[in-house]
């Protein structure tokens, strides 16, 4: 229990790593389950809360890029290991962009980011049958500010348990 709580705090800190002090709320609230595990204290293994708290549910991208950055690979590796631990779990990889582009281009960019994260997981041994991808472009930001910090948090691919 204590381990998991620590893990959750660490994950929250990671999500807010590139944000100014008051952005952590936006970042943790953004995933499908957000910080719900923190509040309840009960994290079901193999759940979204588990993924967020103990693995990290998202990878970040550079502006206009859909290559998984070197510093994001570790997250994908943890996700692949976690998915190996819970073989019944199916996930959707949601691709997103920041707000500094046009809607249609960002929809395509989000899809390409989602595909890149999916391909990364497949390369790490996850069956592609367990993975689907959907893009929301700039239309579902995790951080709601109009700052470079918020944009960095929004250029992301989020793995969400179905």
């Amino acid at each position, binding site marked *: 229990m204590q381990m998991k709580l620590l893990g959750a705090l660490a994950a929250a800190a990671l999500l807010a790593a590139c944000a100014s002090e008051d952005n952590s709320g936006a970042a943790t609230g953004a995933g499908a389950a957000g910080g719900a595990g923190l509040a309840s204290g009960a994290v079901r293994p193999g759940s979204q809360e588990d993924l967020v708290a103990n693995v990290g549910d998202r990878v970040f991208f550079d502006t206009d890029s859909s290559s998984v950055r070197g510093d994001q690979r570790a997250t994908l590796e943890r996700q692949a290991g976690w998915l190996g631990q819970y073989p019944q779990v199916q996930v959707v990889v949601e691709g997103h962009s920041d707000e500094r582009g*046009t809607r249609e281009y960002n929809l395509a960019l989000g*899809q390409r980011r989602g595909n890149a994260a999916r391909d990364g997981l497949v390369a790490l041994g996850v069956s592609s049958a367990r993975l689907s991808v959907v893009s929301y472009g700039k*239309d579902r930001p995790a951080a*709601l500010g109009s700052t470079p910090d918020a944009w960095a948090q929004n250029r992301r691919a989020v793995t969400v348990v179905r």
Partner: protein
Amino acid sequence: MNQSVRVDAALSRRLALLGFGSLLGLPSLARAQAPAAGGPAAGGQVIDITRARTDPIPIALPDFAGSSGPAQQLGQNITRVITNNLRNSGLFRPVERAAYIQTPEAAAGSPRFQDWRVIGAQALVTGRAEPQGDRSRIEFRLWEVGSEQQLQGTAYTANAANWRQIAHVISDVIYERMLGEKGYFDTRIVYIAESGPRDRRTRRLAIMDQDGENHRFLTDGTFQALTPRFHPNARQIAFMSYNNNQPRVYLFNLDSGRQEVLGNFNGMTLSPRFSPDGRSVVLSSVRGGDANIYVVDLASRRERQLTSGGGLDVSPSYSPDGTQIVFNSDRGGDQQLYVMDAGGGGSRRISFGNGRYATPVWSPRGDLIAFTRISGGRFGIGVMRPDGSGERILSEGWAMESPTFAPNGRVLAFYRESQARDTRGGGYSARLSMIDIAGFNERQIVTPTDATDPSWSPLLSS
């Protein structure tokens, strides 16, 4: 002298044509007043933009007369719609009503031109409105004050509920008689109505008259809808729906209210636009690492791939003659505009200014392509010729995109977003605007909620 026209749903498409029939009082004179009577045939020149900016036509619009209280009310309502349309175009200046000397009732009988000349009116619109059971008869005349000539006289009968459309049709007749090019008032705009917090927005298809009236929602918000575009017959809309969490291009039928997926193609489909003949939809589809342009035949639902240049190719838009397609691609490293043959070959880049270019849309006149430019951290809406020359930025700000042309190619609608002031997104908004392609007269369109992705219909009664 008068021509009588019935307006019904079935007949309305013919209405403008009929209205232009035998009653053209002094066409040569009207044309002489118009700065660019030649239209697109005369080399793509629109109205002289300096004149448009500095010298809108002063026009007097006394309330249409009526023989009873309800008739007068109808007359006032119609006159108000026409006056707003003409004023909002930026090309007319309705003369201050307090200055009117002759009464509306008297003017509807026989204008005393001296009374209108002395208050500076160059044109005068008079009319009568008569409710007849569930129908209305509306008669109007357009006068040129200086020559004391009637330029147009037309009577319409229509379902009483259609009085707004009559007012728009009359506005279009006035616009065309005075300016020598077709109007755009009898049109609608389909767009995305947005509500709720920005990370969990509800996005619904919505439609309204171009002046914001007759607003209604077309989808209930269960699934996110984006990027609607009118069919050239104005009865159908192509848009992107997240139905079943699978973002695909859908078709919405305005007559039946039904929607259907365009096709179950492999991968996300987005950014649809109809071909000018209405028989196919051009769109983008992301498969693997690339997004390419495809055209889908509406009858067979078969797709044909048009691009394979690498990178993300999105936002295709046909030239009005259907022979070319402009689109947006980052194949060269960043987003630029490219034009290719409608069959897929001959792709060439046309944007070479500072910044990234996106959301190109071809003018219905064929003479211009409107676009979004992102440069130096700011967004702008601009136009350029189809060969990329003559670029002009019409409006700039924090964020704006998605221009759409009025059917006469003279006005653009687009959406403008404001910057969030705090980390909760406070201060963010998205609103529709219109601007003259000469870069003046930008106005916000009032909508019930935040609004994005406008698409302008063709003329409904053409």
